[in-house]
């Protein structure tokens, strides 16, 4: 018997050893979680003696999050399922550190199926948790890498989209400028013909005016009215020509500040009482090189537009400044990068919709109703600025106002602006001051000759270059050659070259209605070329001729 007892004792001891020293923790707990038995392994892991653990509830061994998890998930599920597997929990050790563990729990039932106690098996999950942590951070960095990649892609897409948008904008600009070019060619052609006809009418009227007897009031008035109409028509064609960039420009160094200051009196009276005008003139403003008259016209046109936009009064600001145009902007707007003088006209008026902005520079585009606007104001500004290698841009917001900025190239030289030339009278000439008029258009030739004779000059005329040269040979008394630029066989420029070989002291005036020709390069006069614009009034003709002869 003793051996049987011994054997049982041995077996018991062995089972106890298995229980106590197993490579996992064992806990037996009551159904409501009170610890009844715990093995040595688990006690050693926690560093707590067994008798301190017995009687405690399982959640007492868990940190706060574990406690809550135990009450809200672990216990309810164990109760409902009878078991709960592979739960990751941390146990609190005696030294305050934590034991990452994997817990399995199972209800043990008696033969009738009544739950008796809960068996918990606890594995040390330190390694596994570390591995899982690595897995997680690997996943996190993979996600991060993905995210970075995604962002990179998005960035790439954005860059491409920007690029495309920019190219489209450049193309749009190009298309727009081509359209303006085409419209310009068309208007230019018409305006040129129209101009010649006007020259005839104006010259004719001038002559009639001088001839009719002073007492004849009725005819005088009629002529004055016709003259008025013709002058207006001439001004209109000037604007058309300006837009088509075929108007001869006479650029000179311009101090825009001085110019704006000089104009402000005139502008104030034009703008009226209800519009407050101010100028903001930059100090150290660069000079630009431009045709003074055209620049003045442009500023007047912009100011008049501003006035029209501020029917109820407002504020008009003319501002000057130095500006650099960088490569990106230059490419986008089809201009040369570099330094520019900026003149901005700002109003607090109605503003313009994007649709109106898109069309504003088109000739004859107006929103101002019949008889009120010709739609050529901004066209002049546009044509002049482009012809001067500058740039113009509208910024506008409905209800707030409009700013139009003109950029003209900086002038690097030191030359000073010449004094204003024109005076109000009609200086006369003398018969010994012989002028040779070369002009292929019969009417224009006759009328110009007639006007010069009326002014007192001696006049010879020729209908082209060859006959002109012949006349010069035969008439050494000719002091001044007045020649058209565009003529069939020999143009004005060639004529003048040969004439000057013959007569180095000969004075020359070109007349022209437009600039697509020899004396003007890119619409800009060669220095020392004297130009008389067609159609010329008697006054303009008299002044120009006098000025050149007196030089």
């Amino acid at each position: 018997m003793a051996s049987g007892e011994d054997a049982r004792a041995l077996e018991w001891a062995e089972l106890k050893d298995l229980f106590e020293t197993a490579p996992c923790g064992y806990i037996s707990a009551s159904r409501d979680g009170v610890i009844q038995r715990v093995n040595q392994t688990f006690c050693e892991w926690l560093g707590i003696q067994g008798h301190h653990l017995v009687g405690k509830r399982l959640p007492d061994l868990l940190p706060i999050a574990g406690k809550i998890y135990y009450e809200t998930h672990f216990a309810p599920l164990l109760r409902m399922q009878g078991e709960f597997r592979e739960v990751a929990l941390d146990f609190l050790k005696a030294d305050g550190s934590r034991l990452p563990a994997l817990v399995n729990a199972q209800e043990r039932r008696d033969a009738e199926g009544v739950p008796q106690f809960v068996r918990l098996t606890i594995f040390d999950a330190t390694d596994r948790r570390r591995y899982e942590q690595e897995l997680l951070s690997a996943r996190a960095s993979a996600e991060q890498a993905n995210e970075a990649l995604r962002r990179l892609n998005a960035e790439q897409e954005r860059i491409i989209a920007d690029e495309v948008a920019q190219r489209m904008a450049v193309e749009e600009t190009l298309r727009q400028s081509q359209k303006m070019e085409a419209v310009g060619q068309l208007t230019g052609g018409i305006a040129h013909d129209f101009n010649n006809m006007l020259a005839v009418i104006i010259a004719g009227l001038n002559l009639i005016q001088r001839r009719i007897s002073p007492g004849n009031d009725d005819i005088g008035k009629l002529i004055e009215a016709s003259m008025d109409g013709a002058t207006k028509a001439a001004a209109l064609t000037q604007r058309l020509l300006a837009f088509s960039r075929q108007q001869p420009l006479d650029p000179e160094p311009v101090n825009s500040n001085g110019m704006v200051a000089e104009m402000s009196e005139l502008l104030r009276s034009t703008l009226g009482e209800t519009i407050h005008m101010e100028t903001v003139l930059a100090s150290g403003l660069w000079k630009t090189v431009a045709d003074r008259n055209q620049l003045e016209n442009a500023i007047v046109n912009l100011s008049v537009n501003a006035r029209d936009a501020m029917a109820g009064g407002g504020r008009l600001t003319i501002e000057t400044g130095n500006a650099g145009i960088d490569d990106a902007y230059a490419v986008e707007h089809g201009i040369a990068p570099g330094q520019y003088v900026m003149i901005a006209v700002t109003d607090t008026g109605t503003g313009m919709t994007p649709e109106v902005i898109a069309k504003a520079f088109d000739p004859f585009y107006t929103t101002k109703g019949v008889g009120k606007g010709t739609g050529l104001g901004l066209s002049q500004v546009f044509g002049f600025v482009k012809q001067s290698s500058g740039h113009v841009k509208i910024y506008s917001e409905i209800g707030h106002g409009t700013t139009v900025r003109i950029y003209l190239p900086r002038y690097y030289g030191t030359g000073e602006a010449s004094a204003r030339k024109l005076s109000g009278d009609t200086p006369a000439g003398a018969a010994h001051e012989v002028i040779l008029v070369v002009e292929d258009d019969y009417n224009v030739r006759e009328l110009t000759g007639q006007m010069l004779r009326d002014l007192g000059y001696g006049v010879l005329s020729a209908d082209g270059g060859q006959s002109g040269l012949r006349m010069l040979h035969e008439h050494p008394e000719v002091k001044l050659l007045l020649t058209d630029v565009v003529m069939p066989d020999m143009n004005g420029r060639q004529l003048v070259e040969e004439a000057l070989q013959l007569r180095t002291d000969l004075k020359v005036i070109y007349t022209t209605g437009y600039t697509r020709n020899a004396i003007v390069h890119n619409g800009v006069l060669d220095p020392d070329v004297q130009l008389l614009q067609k159609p010329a009034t008697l006054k303009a003709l008299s002044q120009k001729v006098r000025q050149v002869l007196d030089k």
Partner: protein
Amino acid sequence: MMSRAAMHNVQISGAGPPTIVFAHGFGCDQNMWRFVAPAFEDRFRVVTFDHIGAGGSDLTAYDPKRYSTLDGYADDVVALCRELSMTGGIFVGHSVSAMIGILAARKAPELFGKLVLVGPSPCYINTDDYVGGFTEAQISELLEFLDSNHMGWSTAMAPIIMGNPDRPELAKELTNSFCRTDPDIAKRFARATFLSDNRADLDGFSVPSLILQCSDDVIAPQVVGQYVHHRLENSRIVNLSATGHCPNLSAPAETIAAINSFV
């Protein structure tokens, strides 16, 4: 549009006409009531449901903003009970649903004639003159844990997912079939629960209420049950011998008896 009942996976049984509705708390779903609710089928129309985000509810209806406070859950209870044409019924709320029930009763006084509050807590964090059972530091440790330690909490929720990241189908199979919880929603529900402070809503609340208080409940300790009892003017408190936070599972008979004595 889906009915409220369908959205909340409502189960109805029992005779009626008086209605008793059982609401589960944080951590599980209507299965929480599986040992208790059937005991009332002979006298009541018995309604159990899942809060949106829990169990078999319509997860697509989960709106983080709406459910960031208990108010959203209370609005759900009101809408659901109205759809069920409840008036003067009995609301039995476990854990955080005890307070949800009080909020719902305040919004729609006609719904409930009596409330049973199992392990209620109007505020989990201690203040100068109030013991909620948790320090502010403990609750922020819990919330930080939920937010930052994806591992601990979600693993605990769905342990197998982490063990077999390549075979998520295993997780479905092996995790419990009773309390299905989306870890992300569970985190948000924990936040709404443990940061709530509805103590002021106890004042002036006079619907007859029964408080069931467990012994040794870390989540809603004795003092909190006493506090609720003192502040609710028309309340009774029964101290259960059951330990822990879920007497509805660990001591269904005791829980049933206590409720029966009240309704």
